[in-house]
């Protein structure tokens, strides 16, 4: 398959763009693979890519029940950042950030990762101290972070209400300059193309209907496209983990599925170049290269697999947006959608061997899965290939709940809707 480049674009333009080839093949399933990855979203595809690239394991199939990237990789608000508090999280997400920084080259696919920064606004001195704690935690792990003054913030983000008379005045903020946004679909497509070029079979419209077991050991899956056997079966179906694991005989998981809504405005001349978060509620926004404001807020707050949200959250999110940007009252919401998130019990993910022999599990991404895509696949591939976690994902076990070694960045305990 041809390399993508400006030259290739010019060459193809001269031949009427007739010679472009499919970005990935659409093969028929083989009866067996070394590794099956259930879930053709960002994490499943990146896992396949790194299995092939880092470990030379290419007899791999990615099984996707719908179209490739139909889950949360195409439904998020595209922010990429590593501005966490707890060292386990900082290290993992920073590894992801480093992979992001070279991803377009690595994949020969422009995922449009743009490091225009992520700014968390602080509204009280106590909150600013909290952000300082977090920023210093990042700095002590070698990650960039800085505090910004209201004057610097006002200059960076026009239209922001920085007045002292605001209901929640902005007194500063925590900035990670290396954070930013990427084009979410391109990440799925780029990994798919990259995995495909290394021989991975991507099987769309291939829904898993059951697990084939030999005793307790998982040895394959039944699908809508027939039975497929595998030496190792990896599950990366965030949003639907409970549902899929039940098919494997695991009735309960430390996960609840919640719906998170996202919104995009009509296209506007770009004025917001960073990712911005509100400190006195739950609101975040960025502006895409097409000009749409991409934003969201809190979870709807109850178990749901419906990919449809409810009205009170819509109203809440819009109110918060206007608390920050009173001039945007006349901007109009164009689209809304809902994604189903795996909300884990401590707000952190699970990347592990097991819980059954022959099985590997990647889940619990809450609403932070997009930025984790590279590191998640990288660590999961390591875990599958070596049958043990890499040090980056070693803390993200399933038994950490029983052991009490939980990784609770928000300090909310086992109430998933609050993470």
């Amino acid at each position: 398959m041809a390399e993508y480049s400006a030259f290739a674009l010019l060459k193809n333009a001269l031949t009427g763009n007739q010679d472009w080839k499919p970005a990935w093949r659409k093969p028929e399933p083989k009866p067996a693979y070394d590794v099956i990855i259930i879930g053709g979203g960002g994490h499943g595809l990146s896992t396949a890519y790194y299995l092939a690239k880092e470990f030379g394991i290419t007899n791999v199939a990615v099984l996707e029940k719908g179209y490739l990237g139909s889950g949360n990789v195409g439904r998020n608000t595209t922010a990429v950042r590593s501005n966490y508090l707890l060292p386990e999280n900082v290290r993992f997400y920073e590894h992801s950030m480093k992979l992001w920084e070279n991803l377009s080259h690595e994949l020969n696919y422009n995922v449009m990762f743009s490091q225009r920064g992520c700014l968390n606004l602080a509204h009280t001195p106590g909150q600013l101290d909290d952000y300082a704690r977090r920023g210093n935690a990042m700095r002590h792990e070698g990650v960039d972070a800085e505090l910004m003054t209201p004057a610097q913030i006002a200059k960076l983000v026009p239209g922001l209400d920085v007045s002292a008379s605001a209901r929640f005045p902005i007194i500063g903020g925590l900035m990670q300059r290396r954070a930013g946004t990427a084009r979410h679909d391109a990440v799925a497509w780029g990994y798919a193309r990259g995995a495909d070029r290394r021989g991975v079979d991507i099987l769309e419209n291939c829904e898993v209907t059951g697990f084939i077991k030999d005793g307790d050991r998982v040895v394959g899956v039944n699908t809508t496209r027939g039975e497929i056997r595998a030496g190792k079966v990896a599950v990366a179906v965030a949003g639907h983990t409970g549902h899929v694991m039940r098919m494997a005989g695991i009735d309960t998981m430390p996960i609840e599925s919640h719906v998170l809504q996202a919104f995009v405005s009509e296209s506007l001349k770009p004025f917001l170049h960073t990712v911005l978060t509100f400190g006195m509620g739950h609101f975040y926004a960025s502006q895409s290269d097409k000009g749409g404001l991409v934003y969201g807020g809190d979870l709807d707050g109850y178990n749901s697999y419906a990919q449809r949200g409810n009205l009170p959250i819509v109203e809440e999110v819009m109110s918060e947006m206007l608390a920050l940007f009173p001039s945007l009252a006349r901007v109009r919401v164009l689209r809304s959608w809902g994604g189903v998130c795996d909300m884990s019990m401590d707000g952190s993910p699970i990347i592990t061997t097991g819980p059954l022999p022959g099985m590997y599990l990647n889940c619990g991404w809450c609403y932070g899965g997009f930025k984790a895509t590279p590191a998640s696949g990288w660590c999961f591939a390591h875990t599958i290939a070596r049958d043990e976690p890499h040090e980056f994902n070693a803390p993200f076990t399933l038994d950490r709940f029983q052991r009490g070694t939980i990784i609770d960045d928000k300090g909310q305990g086992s109430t998933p809707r609050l993470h």
Partner: protein
Amino acid sequence: MLITCPYCGPRDVSEYTYQGDGNRTRPDPASTDQEVWNAYVYDRLNPAGEHHEIWQHSGGCRAHLAVTRNTLTHVVSSVSFARDAGHKKSDSRRKTGAKA
């Protein structure tokens, strides 16, 4: 989404606070069986379909309600007071991810 509170009538979801999986039963307080506690605190059935769950009418009478609701359609099929629901005993021997 509307939930019909037995006291207050049909009310918008914004008046309620979700209190999670209603299939769980708190273990005997004196129990020291970590597995049972772990299941109570951390493990969830999380079905795609009918779900027994607890909601508090926090913006109204503040009663806790045992609600059966479909997580695929959001259709609420039954509501009663949690204190009367005679809480379904959960099977503590359910196969849990954390255990296996």
